[in-house]
């Protein structure tokens, strides 16, 4: 078969010119990779083919540097129906139903074009979920930005702008398409200034019988393209995402795409209609994500062990004179690829037309294992499918212990304690710090209730969605404290999972499984590889302890600006199963007179100041030796808490995290509006307070001991609770005097609940003005 170069009409370089000019280097392909491609083809790849190799072998598409690490994650479990490898992972939740979830990053697009970058991030992860056959039921967003005060930011206005626009993008896409955004996290640190992190997780529900796979099986079957037309937007977006930012990257900006949530809404409904009602003629379905058409089609063929013949003239195009290279690499949004049984194309077209969408046949499944592209009567690519997918390079990159660690570990973290002379003052400052302050200003702009399943909205430890036609519910959260991982990747990795599990348990659910977004710097830096490896080891260990396999995930590398990497930030998204909606618990105190307890591991509250908010606040930096966590001990505490919740002994539960036990107590007393319809107008919420006595020194009020919970219990059930959870320490009572009274061995804290709440509630809006 002759494999000519692109038509004479376009002045594309010849195969020889590609070799001689090394143009592939612009696409982040190395000389060695180019040679590998030449070897696989047994000839020089033409321009289009070289482009296909470059994008398919980019980190973003094939995870060439991270695959060896991902293989170390535990991925199996009795409930796991689909682990990593498909659009999203799937876990059985009983009653013939399953939960489908995955997270994805959109860091680089959001850094240059925050609104569209974040919006298309939501659109992309939604497609992963409904391509599995599931209806998306919830979105969570995990965000990291630079600091919001001029003293700690290079360009504070830019940081504010990024927050504003990223949040607007998420809200605009999620609200329009009608999937509730129910949770997330938002943290601020100087290291994210040039490279914010925008991770979005989507959760879907499916009847087990409807599960789909992205397969192009059965020679002769048709490949159909549905959704939006293809434009030149986002070409090389995937390789763009795999490159670190430097000063002169302005020209890359054309890689940003515009989202059309209305189109995607129609796409969801049409695809689910096909899956639910016409499954007999659907062979496989996959979304077009990174590296658009080439990635989706090659993967579908690879998974089925088939070949493909695509006629690019039939690809719906938005712009004129598009080259094969442009069409294959375009990252235009809101497109899906279907494999349809031969002879049934018209039925499919009809269904999509009813939703106002185009569906056209652009090729056929073949049995020759080849990836063949035809354009204007010529063959423009002819590559073994496997070469693009399974045979992509895999690198075992070297790692070395980061030089920073020795210095960080030499810091005495207990120095933070010395700065705490007025605990009430420190307390109020902590409540005002943007990482701890209420994120209401953000999630107020997210429709968190559409689809009428949301029981717990943003504002509590985990969001909760009821599962219709059952007594069950799903709890979900995202978590990661990059500062801990910066100090100690392995322990930090454990903590990220433990905190996610704590949030799930505090809401009354059993952790089921996790997804992740591994946000790191350049893998070519051995220190970054060390962070990646060690934190993955910590995550794996914690996942084994909590019995939460990793069912899906995403890797985002090259998160650097001018060689400054972000904190290693492996975002953990966890979903838990609530056996009965009666178990749903929030962090809010409900009733004056309730007994307040502290549940913590065998060691109680420890002087855990390394990487804490109070350390950052009082010393201006972080450092010290991060205390290891006893995962089994935490698991025991979680199990005890769950038992008590299920026995109906608990009115509220909140895990201790940023800001320590003082902040946890305060947040519980703020009586927030997380249970829809309570809170603001609950006259009690305005007067609730707490009167407790902790037998600790003042600074420990702010120590971030992982695995501790603040729990409130009706006084009539106190005895039963103490019998069920012998390790619980009685601290005092919920009051109705509107005061936070926290006694210690020192001066303790005494502040009016409402004034503390005002600081906490209004801080973020003030900072963002």
């Amino acid at each position, binding site marked *: 078969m002759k494999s000519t170069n692109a038509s004479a009409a376009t002045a594309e370089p010849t195969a020889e010119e590609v070799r001689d000019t090394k143009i592939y280097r612009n696409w982040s392909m190395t000389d060695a990779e180019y040679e590998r491609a030449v070897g696989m083809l047994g000839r020089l790849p033409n321009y289009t083919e070289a482009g296909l190799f470059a994008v398919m072998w980019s980190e973003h598409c094939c995870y060439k540097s991270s695959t060896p690490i991902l293989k170390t994650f535990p991925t199996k479990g009795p409930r796991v129906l689909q682990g990593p490898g498909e659009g999203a992972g799937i876990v059985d939740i009983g009653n013939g139903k399953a939960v489908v979830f995955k997270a994805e990053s959109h860091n680089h697009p959001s850094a*240059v074009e925050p609104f569209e970058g974040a919006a298309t991030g939501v659109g992309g992860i939604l497609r992963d979920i409904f391509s599995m056959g599931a209806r998306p039921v919830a979105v969570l967003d995990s965000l990291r930005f630079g600091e919001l005060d001029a003293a700690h930011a290079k360009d504070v206005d830019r940081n504010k702008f990024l927050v504003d626009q990223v949040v607007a993008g998420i809200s605009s896409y999620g609200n329009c398409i009608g999937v509730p955004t129910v949770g997330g996290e938002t943290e601020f640190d100087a290291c994210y200034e040039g490279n914010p992190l925008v991770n979005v997780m989507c959760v879907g529900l499916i009847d087990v019988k409807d599960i789909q796979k992205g397969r192009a099986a059965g020679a002769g079957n048709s490949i159909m393209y549905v959704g939006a037309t293809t*434009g030149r937007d986002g070409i090389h977006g995937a390789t763009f995402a795999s490159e670190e930012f430097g000063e002169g990257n302005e020209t890359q*900006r054309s890689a*940003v*795409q*515009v989202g059309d949530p*209305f189109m995607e809404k129609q796409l969801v409904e049409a695809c689910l209609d096909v899956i639910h009602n016409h499954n007999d003629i659907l062979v496989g379905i996959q979304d077009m994500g990174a590296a658009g058409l080439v990635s989706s089609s090659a993967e579908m063929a690879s998974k089925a062990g088939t070949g493909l013949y695509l006629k690019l003239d039939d690809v719906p195009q938005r712009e004129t004179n598009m080259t094969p290279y442009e069409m294959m690499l375009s990252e235009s*949004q809101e497109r899906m690829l279907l494999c349809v049984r031969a002879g049934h194309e018209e039925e499919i077209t009809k269904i999509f037309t009813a939703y106002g969408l185009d569906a056209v046949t652009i090729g056929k499944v073949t049995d020759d294992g080849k990836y063949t592209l035809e354009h204007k009567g010529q063959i423009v690519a002819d590559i073994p499918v496997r070469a693009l997918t399974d045979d992509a390079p895999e690198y075992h990159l070297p790692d070395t212990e980061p030089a920073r660690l020795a210095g960080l570990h030499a810091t005495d973290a207990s120095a933070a304690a010395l700065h705490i002379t007025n605990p009430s003052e420190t307390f109020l400052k902590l409540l005002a710090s943007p990482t701890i302050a209420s994120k209401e200003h953000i999630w107020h702009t997210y429709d968190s209730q559409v689809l009428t399943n949301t029981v717990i909205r943003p504002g509590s430890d985990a969001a909760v969605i009821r599962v219709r036609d059952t007594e069950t519910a799903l709890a979900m959260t995202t978590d990661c404290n990059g500062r801990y991982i910066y100090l100690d990747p392995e322990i930090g990795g454990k903590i990220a999972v433990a905190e996610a599990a704590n949030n799930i348990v505090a809401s009354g659910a059993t952790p089921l499984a996790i997804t992740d977004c591994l946000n790191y710097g350049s893998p070519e830096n051995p220190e970054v590889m060390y962070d990646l490896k060690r934190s993955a080891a910590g995550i794996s260990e914690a996942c084994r302890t909590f019995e939460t396999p990793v069912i899906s995930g995403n890797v985002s590398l090259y998160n650097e600006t001018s060689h400054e990497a972000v904190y290693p930030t492996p975002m953990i998204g966890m979903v838990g199963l609530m056996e009965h909606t009666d178990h749903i618990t929030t962090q809010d105190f409900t009733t004056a007179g309730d007994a307040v307890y502290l549940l913590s591991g065998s060691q109680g509250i420890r002087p855990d100041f390394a990487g804490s908010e109070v350390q950052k606040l009082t010393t201006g930096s972080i450092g010290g030796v991060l205390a290891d966590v006893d995962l089994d001990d935490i698991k025991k505490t979680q199990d005890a808490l769950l038992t008590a919740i299920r026995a109906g002994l608990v009115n509220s539960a909140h895990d201790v995290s940023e800001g320590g036990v003082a902040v946890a107590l305060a947040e519980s007393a703020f009586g927030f509006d997380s249970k829809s319809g309570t809170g603001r107008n609950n006259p009690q919420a305005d007067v609730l307070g707490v009167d407790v006595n902790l037998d600790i020194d003042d600074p420990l009020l702010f120590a971030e001991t992982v695995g501790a919970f603040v729990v409130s219990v009706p006084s009539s059930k106190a005895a039963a609770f103490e019998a069920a959870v012998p390790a619980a320490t009685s601290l005092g009572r919920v009051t109705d005097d509107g005061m936070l009274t926290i006694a210690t061995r020192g001066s303790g804290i005494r502040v009016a609940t409402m004034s503390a709440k005002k600081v906490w509630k209004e801080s973020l809006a003030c900072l963002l003005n």
Partner: protein
Amino acid sequence: MESSKNYKVTVYVTYKESVLDPQGQAVQGAIERMGYEGIDSVRIGKYFEITAHAEDGKSLEETVDAICDKLLANPNMETYRYEITHAETDGAQA
């Protein structure tokens, strides 16, 4: 201030050709469904009517350039153009 004149500035911001305009598409579709013929394409942009005062058109132009670049248009995906006319006079082009 005494010597400053009044101007009217109109700024037009549109998406670059290559950028998808879902809004324009939606409007075009609606026009077709309403039964009107002959509409080949619709693109939607923003339109700002600004009143301003300045010493002269030249200095105002600098300000408007800066405002457009930094605020009114997103250089990643939009282009703009503007017109400055004298207000309260017969609208000569500045």
